[in-house]
């Protein structure tokens, strides 16, 4: 295979030891991270699974051969075993399980994305504020964080959903409320090591306000470790959401949420094993993907943890 000269030029430009501009340096850094990530085979498998999840979620309407909510003929198409027509069989309402699993990818992706969007800023805000100011603010905020950490995650989410009422939106809120404390801890630890750095002193001497220092100079430096942590947590978020769905507290029927689908198939487990088994495989593969991706990212971005 002969290398494309223009491509080679690009690679050289990216890996240049003397970048001519800030953007070149940034792109070069990103390219180096990407190169070392691609050499991690399991990490690439994880990335592949997550990409497939995203694609399936986007093109669910095209991929799914049947309607996920409306079933076929209840007399002849109920609880059919997996076949060429129905790859994963049909459920008790004669709905095609494969189509439901495909549409379930949307719900799963939505849960993961929204929890990350809600919980990450809360964790960053609490952690950086706490670490930057120290003193009694730190004590109070960290005590509150400890209280949230004192509950097991699923139990606290259960209690919140019980209070807010079942439904996928409330499940997302409950999971987000229970997810932020570890991020706050992490952001605080990072902030403590940044707080007394000279560049922060320099900005302070220029008269920047505390808010500006935290938002503009501390948060960006904490970002990468928090993002790794969030990625590593995504499998846990999926499992918690599926657990809530399984208990009937997450997505409500007829929504094709994977955990709720397993609960629905429980009654037919012994005679019609595929109804409960197929959505479980989907949950397993997707969480495995996020776990592998998170491990890969950590190895690349956080070499300290790699030695373990």
């Amino acid at each position: 295979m002969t290398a494309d000269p223009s491509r080679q030029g690009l690679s050289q430009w990216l890996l240049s030891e003397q970048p001519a501009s800030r953007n070149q340096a940034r792109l070069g850094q990103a390219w180096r991270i990407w190169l070392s990530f691609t050499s991690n085979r399991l990490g690439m498998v994880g990335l592949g699974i997550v990409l497939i999840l995203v694609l399936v979620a986007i093109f669910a309407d095209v991929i799914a051969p049947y309607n996920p909510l409306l079933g076929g003929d209840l007399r002849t198409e109920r609880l059919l075993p997996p076949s060429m027509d129905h790859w994963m069989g049909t459920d008790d309402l004669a709905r095609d399980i494969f189509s439901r699993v495909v549409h379930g990818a949307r719900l799963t992706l939505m849960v993961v994305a929204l929890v990350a969007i809600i919980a990450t800023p809360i964790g960053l805000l609490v952690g950086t504020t706490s670490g930057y100011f120290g003193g009694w603010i730190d004590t109070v905020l960290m005590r509150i964080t400890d209280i949230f950490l004192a509950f097991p995650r699923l139990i606290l989410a259960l209690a919140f959903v019980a209070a807010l009422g079942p439904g996928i939106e409330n499940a997302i809120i409950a999971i987000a409320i229970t997810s932020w404390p570890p991020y706050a801890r992490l952001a605080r630890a990072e902030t403590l090591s940044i707080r007394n750095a000279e560049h922060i002193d320099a900005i302070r001497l220029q008269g920047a306000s505390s808010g500006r220092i935290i938002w503009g100079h501390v948060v960006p430096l904490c970002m990468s470790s928090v993002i790794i942590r969030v990625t590593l947590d995504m499998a846990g978020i999926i499992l918690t959401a599926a657990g809530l769905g399984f208990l009937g507290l997450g997505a409500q029927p007829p929504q094709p949420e994977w955990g709720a689908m397993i609960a629905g198939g429980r009654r037919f487990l012994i005679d019609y094993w595929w109804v409960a088994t197929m959505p479980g495989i989907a949950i397993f593969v997707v969480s495995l993907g996020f776990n592998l991706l998170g491990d890969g990212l950590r190895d690349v971005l956080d070499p300290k943890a790699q030695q373990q």
Partner: protein
Amino acid sequence: MRALRLSATVAFTILGLLVVTFLIGRVVPVDPVLAVVGDRASQSTYDRAFVELGLDRPLYVQFGLYVEKAITGDFGESVLTKKPILDDLIYVFPATLELATVGIIIGTLFGIPVGVWAAVRQGKLVDQVVRILGLVGYSAPIFWLGLLGLLVFYAKWGLVAGPGRIDISYEYAFTRVTGLYLVDTAMQGQWGAFRNVVSHIALPGALLGYYSMAYIARMTRSFMLNELAQEYVVTARVKGVAEWRIIWVHALRNAAVPLVTVIALSYAGLLEGSVLTETVFAWPGLGQYLTNSLQNADMNAVLGGTLLIGIIFVGLNLLSDFLYTLLDPRVRRRS
């Protein structure tokens, strides 16, 4: 001084737990008055109950009353069972305790040797197998593995008993003393019932055991790698100490100190895992009590159970700290 600080922290955390459960209880859309008097009560009955429940007072006064009651163990009455929540919790807790204990014993007995083995043969086949077991444990939903287990081991092969704690025919073969059926049946010499209990607990216990094993093995491996790289290991080798002795006696003893924390934490984690496992296996413990109460909007029971689990969590954390200082002379001397 240290003890004082510690108890202040614990008291604060438990107070915080109370704040959280109190606030959750306040935002519930279920009207607490209607839960007591029913929806056919007259306006005057409603008003009286409203005042008796203290709902006309400011929020902080209500919270004070809540804490006062909680300290005396009064979490209200369950709408479902018509019994005080505390009695209910005391009744169901042994079932969860028994299951989690069987799980942690299985997890520790298998997790530590496997973790040590993986550390010794780092990068070899065993190490890869441990890694894969760990990944599966982190990725597979516990309720799904439980259902698959029931399908294969109970329905297809008939190796274990089905859902539930004990068959109805053995239910009255012994008297309930501790609530731990394995202990009760064994003490009373009811071996038939004992075997039945074992066959019921085998699958859920093994399932929880697998999850804790995955975690314990992974941590043991990393602690052991750390210890095996220390200089005292080299010294021992130079002295000609047998390799098995270096690994299982010298290194493992040092790795054991942080491992205690790991085991305590995963014991606490099993309480969480038990909520879903108990639902799958119809296990009449804390988890099933919580989910049943949830589905019937029995908020007193939900919050009481949540609080109990939170307190057990705090307690286990404390215990692991305490054991840490007990086992590690370096920490002991510093304090």
